[in-house]
């Protein structure tokens, strides 16, 4: 195999090494091109990772459904009627729509985002109090700092337990104090703290200062009967959220005698829309980066081709001698193309190393900052594709000087001046 031919490589390296300055200057174009390509790709990867981190713990294929007032008169009801969901709705919807993975009913003390004063040993905190099922954790993951989240036993035996947010902890407890096991008082009822969670600063549906208690406990403690505030729903991955959204609304509209045309009686928020928007953005960004990078690379490779053309011109005599000595056109061509490939690959690898180093430093510098860039690095497939593309480009472009070299007739090359 010629590829393992030590002499062939010796020939190539000798030619390239003959004029180190020019070789190096030629490579700069490709080094910079590779630098730009990798930095752009790595940067957009980092941005994508950053966004993913923001959404970490939030089920992307999810929606929230709540009740509002009707905006259309229907079946003898006037407009402006307040709709109140019942807890049985959750079971009905879950049963009728198999595409739903998780359905977590929730109820709030007071109206939406109402603040309730929570007391403990003379301290107080204005918190939002939620009655929840443990399933809510599958939709918006609570990062627990201490203790545990609500569980099925809490629901079944309506335990008077609660999970509080860090903010609530700060207001009700001293720094360093153990909150788990202590009691707090909400509307005159004592609840034992079983966990403290850290709210997600980027996506926060629960508010800064929140207290979670089991749904069943909520019903008994605050006499909410069969009322249900809203539902958090995770849909299985193969189903589009809007499909489920409209199915749910249809069921609920029929149940509560709401006009099918009434757009405002039932409120909903499709989380997947946000996700799709952002992932479309990062995909476009990645594509754009690749596009820009590849064309820069092309420019770099063309510069190499240009220099090789000049080199071929300069080496006319040498090539003539080689051909007189028995180098076939194929051999001459192969050598020039390989020179192009070696130059490009070497330069590309230098550019790659520099840019990976730079990305690493950028990643460290931006870590934990406000800029949503996380672990900016290119992945193996991206590297492979860029690398193969680079080699392919250099091969194609190397053919130009190679063909020029072959066109030189030995007799012309050897003509004495």
């Amino acid at each position, binding site marked *: 195999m010629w590829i393992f031919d030590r*002499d062939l490589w010796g020939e190539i390296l000798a030619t390239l090494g003959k004029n180190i300055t020019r070789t190096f200057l030629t490579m700069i174009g490709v080094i910079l091109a590779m630098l730009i390509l990798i930095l752009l790709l790595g940067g957009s990867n980092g941005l994508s990772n950053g966004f993913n981190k923001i959404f970490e713990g939030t089920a992307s294929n999810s929606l929230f459904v709540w009740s509002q007032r009707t905006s259309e008169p229907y079946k003898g009801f006037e407009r402006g009627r307040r709709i109140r969901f019942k807890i049985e709705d959750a079971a009905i919807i879950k049963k009728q729509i198999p595409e739903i993975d998780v359905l977590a009913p929730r109820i709030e003390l007071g109206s939406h985002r109402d603040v309730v004063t929570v007391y403990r040993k003379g301290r107080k905190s204005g918190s939002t109090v939620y009655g929840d099922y443990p399933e809510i954790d599958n939709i918006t993951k609570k990062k627990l700092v201490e203790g545990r989240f609500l569980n099925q036993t809490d629901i079944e035996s309506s335990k008077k337990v609660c999970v509080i947010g860090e903010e609530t902890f700060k207001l009700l407890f001293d720094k360093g104090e153990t909150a788990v096991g202590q009691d707090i008082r909400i509307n005159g009822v004592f609840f034992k703290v079983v966990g403290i969670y850290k709210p997600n600063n980027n996506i926060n549906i629960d508010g800064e200062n929140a207290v979670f208690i089991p749904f069943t406990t909520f019903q008994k403690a605050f006499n909410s009967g069969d009322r249900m505030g809203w539902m958090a729903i995770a849909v299985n991955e193969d189903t589009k959220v809007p499909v489920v959204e409209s199915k749910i609304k249809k069921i609920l509209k029929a149940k509560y005698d709401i006009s099918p045309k009434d757009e405002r009686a039932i409120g909903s928020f499709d989380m997947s829309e946000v996700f799709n928007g952002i992932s479309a953005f990062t995909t476009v960004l990645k594509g754009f980066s690749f596009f820009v990078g590849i064309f820069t690379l092309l420019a770099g490779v063309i510069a190499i081709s240009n220099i090789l053309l000049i080199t071929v011109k300069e080496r006319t005599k040498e090539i003539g001698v*080689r051909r*007189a*000595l*028995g180098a*076939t056109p194929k*051999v001459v061509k192969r050598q020039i193309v390989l020179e192009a490939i070696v130059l490009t690959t070497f330069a590309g690898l230098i550019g790659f190393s520099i840019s990976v180093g730079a990305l690493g430093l950028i990643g460290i510098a931006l870590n934990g900052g406000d800029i949503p860039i996380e672990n900016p690095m290119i992945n193996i497939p991206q590297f492979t594709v860029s690398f193969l593309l680079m080699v392919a480009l250099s091969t194609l472009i190397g053919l130009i000087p190679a063909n020029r070299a072959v066109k030189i007739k030995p*007799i012309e090359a*050897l003509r004495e001046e």
Partner: protein
Amino acid sequence: MIEIKNLHKSYKMGSNSLHVLKGIDFSVAEGELVAIMGSSGSGKSTLLNILGMLDTADSGDYVLDGVPIENLNETKAAQYRNKFLGFIFQSFNLINYKSAMENVALPLYYQKVNRKERQEKALNYLERVGLKQWATHLPSELSGGQKQRVAIARAMAAEPKVLLADEPTGALDSKTSYEVMDLIQKINDDGNTILVVTHEEDIAEMCKRIVHLKDGVIVEDKKVEQVRASAYV
């Protein structure tokens, strides 16, 4: 060894056609040392180029060592050159970034001889031209005569049927020229067929046969009493 019949060659110069070789009939036997003489424009270089397969004739036959040389494409020509011919040029044409030994080994490289054997052979030929101790030197570190000797070693390395020398002493002073001719004569003494293109009488006298070209035809073809170059060295 070389058999040429009715060889014609013309070059197009714009609308005019320049008839350079006008029917050359010429043969060289094995072991001959032939000088091809002629003034500039006589067609001697064209003849050598055709013999060296660096150029093709318009018409006529060329048989080299029993192989008819016809319908050559570049690849085939390169292979034949490598197999049959050794070239010695006026300006040596050594590759300047390769050592003497690497230069000598180059034709063997194109013959796909393995590395070790190549180096052995190259050293062997350098020894024959008396430059073994210069094997690792670059051409820029050698004198003109030494360069031409390296070039001769390179031409010999592939063990060709015929050596073609185009003004081998053209770039050398007379003393060095005689040294080179001495070497060429010795190589010829070993039985190698050599063609030397020259316009210098004294160089031609050192061959065994002189062919005079004028305006594209052979005007004289005579055997001569060889003057040994060693007498002048």
